[in-house]
């Protein structure tokens, strides 16, 4: 049982955990800045970038995909800005025009391209495939200390852990400027902080989280983790550091609980097949937000 758990469940759980926390961390600032839908836009735009990278290189290696997704995110930002300025269209609609168009283009190219050799399709892009990230080289908990078995870890897990570490490091390093410019951009500017650069940096951080998480957990879970845990934490505290900590806890909790519920829940009803883990985690995170909202109903304060 435990060997099977390490082989089949440990790596997906850890990948989901790191993905959830990597997205929730920048999500705190997006929610406070009222830019939550940037997370939505980014996670849609990642698809055409990855598809383009696949068309150019013919593989789904990590580095070209990251570059492709980053380029797509930049292209989307430029398009939104151009349409907003040149077309004099409000930001929400401009964003809607751009991300639906880029996503549509990504889907069409993906349907046309020959992706039979690689694991890349639209459903995969939406829901991810957490369940497939198994660790075949593991023979039990002892494998965690065995270098040969560790070399066989799913690359998605390693990538996600690195991304989470990098995002945490950057957030800690730039905590003060990020916090000040989030709450009072004007004040931050008078302090001489580069407000625009900080805003752009936050978007890049979010894009990094989205790209790293994308092929493991799918875009829908990315959006859920950007928004639901930070929003729930926002309802429970007024202190930014505490909010971030609570959001990370919620993200960790729902990712583990969601995976267990999806993977083992059907067994409790005597059924063998598992449900979609990414979907379950997203739904649970919404439930967590709902619970927090019920708990603090009417607790409406300034900001």
């Amino acid at each position, binding site marked *: 049982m435990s060997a099977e758990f390490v082989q089949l469940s440990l790596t997906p759980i850890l990948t989901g955990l790191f993905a959830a926390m990597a997205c929730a961390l920048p999500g705190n600032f997006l*929610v406070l800045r*009222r830019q*939550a*839908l940037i*997370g*939505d836009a980014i996670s849609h735009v990642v698809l055409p970038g990855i598809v383009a990278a696949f068309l150019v290189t013919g593989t789904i290696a990590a580095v070209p995909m990251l570059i492709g997704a980053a380029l797509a995110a930049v292209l989307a930002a430029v398009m939104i800005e151009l349409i907003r300025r*040149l*077309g*004099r*269209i*409000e930001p*929400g*609609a*401009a*964003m*809607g*025009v751009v991300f*639906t*168009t880029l*996503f*549509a*283009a990504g*889907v*069409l190219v993906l*349907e046309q391209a020959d992706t039979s050799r690689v694991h890349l399709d*639209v*459903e995969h892009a*939406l*829901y991810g495939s957490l369940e497939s990230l198994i660790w075949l080289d593991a023979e039990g908990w002892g494998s965690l200390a065995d270098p040969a078995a560790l070399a066989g870890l799913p690359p998605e897990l390693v990538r996600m852990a690195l991304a989470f570490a990098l995002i945490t490091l950057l957030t800690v390093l730039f905590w003060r400027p990020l916090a000040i410019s989030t709450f009072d951009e004007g004040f931050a500017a008078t302090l001489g902080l580069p407000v625009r650069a900080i805003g752009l940096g936050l978007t890049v951080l979010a894009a990094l989280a989205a790209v790293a998480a994308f092929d493991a957990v799918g875009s*829908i879970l990315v*959006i*859920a983790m*950007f*928004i*639901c845990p930070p*929003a729930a934490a*926002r*309802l429970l505290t007024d202190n930014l550091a505490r909010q971030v900590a609570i959001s990370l806890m919620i993200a960790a909790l729902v990712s583990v609980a969601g995976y267990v519920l*999806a993977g083992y829940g*059907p067994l409790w009803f005597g*059924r063998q*097949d*598992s*449900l*979609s883990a990414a*979907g*379950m*985690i*997203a*739904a*649970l*995170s*919404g*439930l967590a*937000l709902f619970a927090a*909202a019920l708990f*603090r*109903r009417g607790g*409406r*304060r300034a900001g």
Partner: protein
Amino acid sequence: MIGALGSALMFQAGYNAAIAALGSALFGAAAGAVGTFLFLRKRSLVSDALAHATLPGIALAFLVMAFLGGSGRWLPGLLAGAALAAITGLFAVSWLTHHTRLSEDAAIGAVLSAFFGLGVVVLSLIQTLSVGEPAGLDGFLLGSTAGMVRSDVVTIAAGAVVSLIVLFLARRPLALIAFDAGYGEARGYRVRGYDILLMGLVTAITVTGLKIVGLVLVVALLIIPPAMARFWTDRLGVMLAVSAAGGALSGYGGAAFSAAAPDLPTGPVIVLLAFVLFFVSMLAAPRRGILARALKARRFELAVHRRQGLLALSHDEPIYDRLTLKVLRRAGFVRGDGVVTAEGLVAAQAARDDEIRRITGERLFPQAASGSVLDPLDVRYTPDEIAAIERAVSERTLGQPEGAA
């Protein structure tokens, strides 16, 4: 493929393809019209939450119908489930926005992802249960007109037509509130009630379009055609018509394309067609398009240079600016070697007279001027004002030595 597309566009690809194309066009027109009000009310992205929230409704409706013993694919049943779920999602967004301190964008994102996640879970449950015939359910994600039958089209057409009729009946209050909600309230309209009506229409359109465009992209047909129409006009009636036409064209083209290439999802094709229309409009629309505005700016720039050049000539000042020299040379006011021509002298004198009148007008009627700075005097002032200006100018020039004005 091209031949197949051509025949599909001309309604010659068979009966089913033809009615699917007609249904899609009708849906596109209704989406463009309803989207116009959503666009003006600046609430375009609420519809994205609503669209994603339909997935659990579709999946649960399928389960219920399959357990009741059918194939689970009866379209009106699926759409009813979708509508219920969408309304629930809409209430969730509204409740989170009004009863907690979360902003609307966070509420939209949270509802969108949580509902969609729930839908994905129920879909995965359906796959394990092996009840009904779930094969067509994927089509609701990205749209598929290829397998549509006549009753599907009738359902969609009915939804589109009813939405259009309701929109037509409520167009005046909806327009008033879209432009100025405060004024609408003061006039005694129940703003909240009409907002609910508008969101009800958006729900109807979203649900109607699920089969055609798919829930991931249906929001595009509510946003892109109105944004496109905005380039062509400042008038609501015209904007509604242009937006509806753009939506109809995209829907029709997408369905025809789908008939020619049934493996492609319809939604992305429709969205890209709508974007092409949007892009062309943004570039080429008269007055509000980018090209038209650039041309206008260039014309203004040349007119300023011409005028400043003529005024400089009239004061015998040297001109160094290259563009000014070029403009004057092209008009024949200055020769290639820089010497002023006879026409140039006449024009310079006229420009100077005009400038004196403008300065006088500015002094006499500081508030009165209308139109742009370079518009002729009789556009900027009324005949009475011009007469007063003429009097002031002639008194001044008679009373003072020539050239001192």
